């Protein structure tokens, strides 16, 4: 058997996490017009300003056309065939308060966690059992099911709640910051999200406060044929710092599912925000059917001097990923970082990267992108480093590495550099390598199975990014890579 055939054979593995959970859903019939937007807003009892905001976004969206990209291909999405809202029926009870014990949580939800292999203590944390050290705002479909650790956070003055709660309890903050980083009309998917977003997370860390714990959210997509429109807003005031973790995994589906989230981060003077994502959405079957379409707008603004925003992501799911977590470095001496591992297997298409927009003086950015392609996956890195006129002495360093497993996959790198200030220093390094037969043979001759050997080479390749993840996430990320590449060895 040739190496390629062997790879092909091994790559063929079924997605471990393909299942659905049968929780009663309340779904708005498919279709999108102003009435649907009004209905969403009404269901959520939103104040007038939110409705107006949504409607204005909707009107902009109607005039926009869906973008097309050279490196991702997918059947046209019929936006009128999607349903724009789904919430578990027991929403009010579930929303009311974090459960005292696991017994109070919907057993189906716990079952979901179990199938996902989420460790027991973490399941407890997800469900809100006291004593766990990760605060979890678990999003089940579109509405927060459990929110925990609010008290401890409240003591520190940190607000960590669902977006709906923020709209209800802190409308002034929402009003002040919503859409200031990603404007409604920023792009097609952001506009759509702005019109119909269901829920998401809200974090506010006041002046001088270091958030006492890592904040974590697990997103799940679970309602049939329902677009998922999350909205996250994180604000770190002067001198504040926060680390936010987001993890995703989705049940198996027949139809492609659209996910168009928007994440906005705002860091004021000397503030620091670390946003880490480990994503494991259903990538589709061997031919890519049924996978998640992931069109996400994530942007952080270093609004204050000496502020810092770090995006760290491990992308292992989705049929199609289109995602460019970006940093707008407005404040002088502000720092943007982007560490990414993107893994594509089978027919996955990934078009990801980052944008670093340097506006302030002496702003610095670092980009470390690790792309892994197996099977017939196409993995593209697209990065923009923009050094504005005002950004005197700005610096960027970009390291972009691709690892190929087998010879039917592809890696593409598109670095764009726009330097409008002559003092800019921009460095770009790129490498492409293959997992070599020599490496595999060497490790196997030390007793490691093919899969373990592959995982070892791949984790080594990703080390620089894993080092940036919070400890427990790094372990999870490693496990996730192993699952994603299961079988893709040779």
């Amino acid at each position, binding site marked *: 058997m040739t190496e390629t055939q062997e790879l092909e054979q091994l790559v063929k593995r079924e997605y471990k996490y393909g299942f659905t959970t049968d929780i009663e859903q309340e779904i708005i019939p498919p279709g999108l017009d102003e009435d649907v937007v009004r209905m969403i807003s009404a269901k959520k009892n939103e104040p007038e300003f939110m409705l107006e905001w949504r409607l204005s976004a909707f009107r902009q969206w109607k005039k926009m056309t869906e973008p097309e990209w050279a490196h991702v291909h997918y059947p046209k999405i019929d936006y009128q065939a999607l349903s724009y809202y789904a919430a578990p029926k027991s929403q009010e009870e579930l929303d009311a308060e974090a459960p005292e014990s696991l017994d109070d949580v919907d057993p189906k939800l716990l079952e979901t966690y179990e199938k996902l292999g989420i460790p027991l203590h973490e399941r407890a944390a997800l469900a809100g059992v006291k004593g766990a050290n990760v605060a979890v705002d678990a999003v089940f479909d579109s509405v927060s099911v459990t929110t925990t650790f609010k008290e401890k956070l409240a003591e520190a003055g940190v607000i960590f709640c669902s977006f709906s709660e923020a709209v209800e309890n802190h409308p002034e903050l929402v009003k002040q910051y919503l859409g200031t980083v990603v404007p409604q009309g920023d792009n097609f998917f952001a506009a759509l999200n702005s019109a119909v977003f269901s829920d998401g997370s809200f974090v506010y860390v006041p002046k001088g406060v270091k958030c006492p714990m890592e904040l974590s959210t697990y997103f799940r997509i679970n309602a049939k044929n329902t677009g998922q429109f999350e909205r996250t807003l994180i604000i770190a005031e002067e001198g504040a710092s926060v680390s936010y973790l987001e993890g995703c995994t989705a049940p198996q589906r027949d139809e492609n599912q659209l996910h168009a989230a928007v994440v906005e981060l705002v860091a004021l003077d000397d503030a620091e925000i670390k946003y880490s994502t480990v994503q494991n959405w259903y990538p589709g079957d061997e031919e890519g059917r049924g996978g998640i379409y992931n069109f996400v707008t994530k942007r952080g603004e270093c609004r204050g001097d000496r502020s810092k925003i770090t995006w760290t992501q491990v992308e292992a799911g989705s049929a199609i990923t289109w995602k460019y977590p970006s940093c707008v470095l407005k404040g002088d001496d502000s720092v943007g970082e982007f560490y990414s591992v993107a893994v594509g297997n089978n027919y996955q298409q990934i078009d990801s990267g980052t944008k670093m927009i340097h506006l302030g003086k002496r702003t610095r950015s670092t980009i470390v992108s690790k792309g892994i392609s197996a099977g017939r996956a196409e993995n593209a890195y697209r990065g923009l480093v923009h050094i504005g006129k005002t950004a005197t002495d700005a610096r960027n360093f970009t390291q972009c590495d691709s690892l190929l497993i087998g010879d039917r996959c592809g890696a593409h790198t598109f670095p764009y550099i726009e330097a409008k200030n002559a003092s800019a220093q921009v460095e770009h390094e790129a490498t492409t390598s293959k997992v070599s037969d020599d490496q595999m043979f*060497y490790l196997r001759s*030390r007793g490691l199975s093919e899969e373990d050997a592959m995982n070892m080479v791949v984790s080594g*390749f990703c080390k620089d990014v894993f080092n940036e993840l919070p400890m427990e996430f790094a372990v999870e990320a490693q496990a996730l890579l192993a699952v994603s590449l299961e079988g893709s060895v040779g």
Partner: protein
Amino acid sequence: MALLEIKNLHAEIDGKEILKGINLSINAGEVHAIMGPNGSGKSTLCHVLGGRDGYEVTQGTITFDGHDLLEMETEERAVAGMLLGFQHPVEIPGVKNIYLLKEALNAKREAQGLDEIDTFTFMKQVRELVASMDMDDAFLHRGVNAGFSGGEKKRNEILQMLLLEPKLALLDETDSGLDIDALKVVSEGINRMRGEERGIILVTHYQRLLNYVEPDFVHVLYKGKIIKSGDKTLAHRLEAEGYQEILEEAS
């Protein structure tokens, strides 16, 4: 029964026959040296014994410690007690040496039905071995062979052998590229492995290694065949006369 029994082994790469009928029998407790001109098939033999993909055995049998070796995957051979010391150890960036050592040891322990080694015992053992190889602890935390000098890579191979305590060690030119002191350290390492329960195959071009590690048998491999076998004096002859005379004798 011999530890390793190779009978009429023929093997090819990409349809080209490299090994053309090798017979070799190695008992536990013995050290065999395999010598031979460049390109004669020494590394190929090592890779075939290691079970490398792309090396096709077209004829012959190999038994190892009672197993039909040709039925076993590379990793099965490893955990059954075969260790291949590479002529050119490959670099695996980002994977800490210590991590590979631990995984390798645990793979073997798992096959033996033992629990994973506890970190404390492991670290103690590894530190002692590292010191015995005259290596710095820092090597443990560097990427596997990444940026190692030629000699450092070879020491690292011996370190792995000492930790994994194989039944059969196949050392392919472990002495090449070593300075005088390193040759001594490596030889001492090999001698420590020497014992009743173990077989060792040394592939080498030089007598200087064999001065430190005295072989029980010496074989000359030429064009894919063992054309002459003898005791350690055969190596002395090769050193003095070169291959020409022996090749003529054999043909």
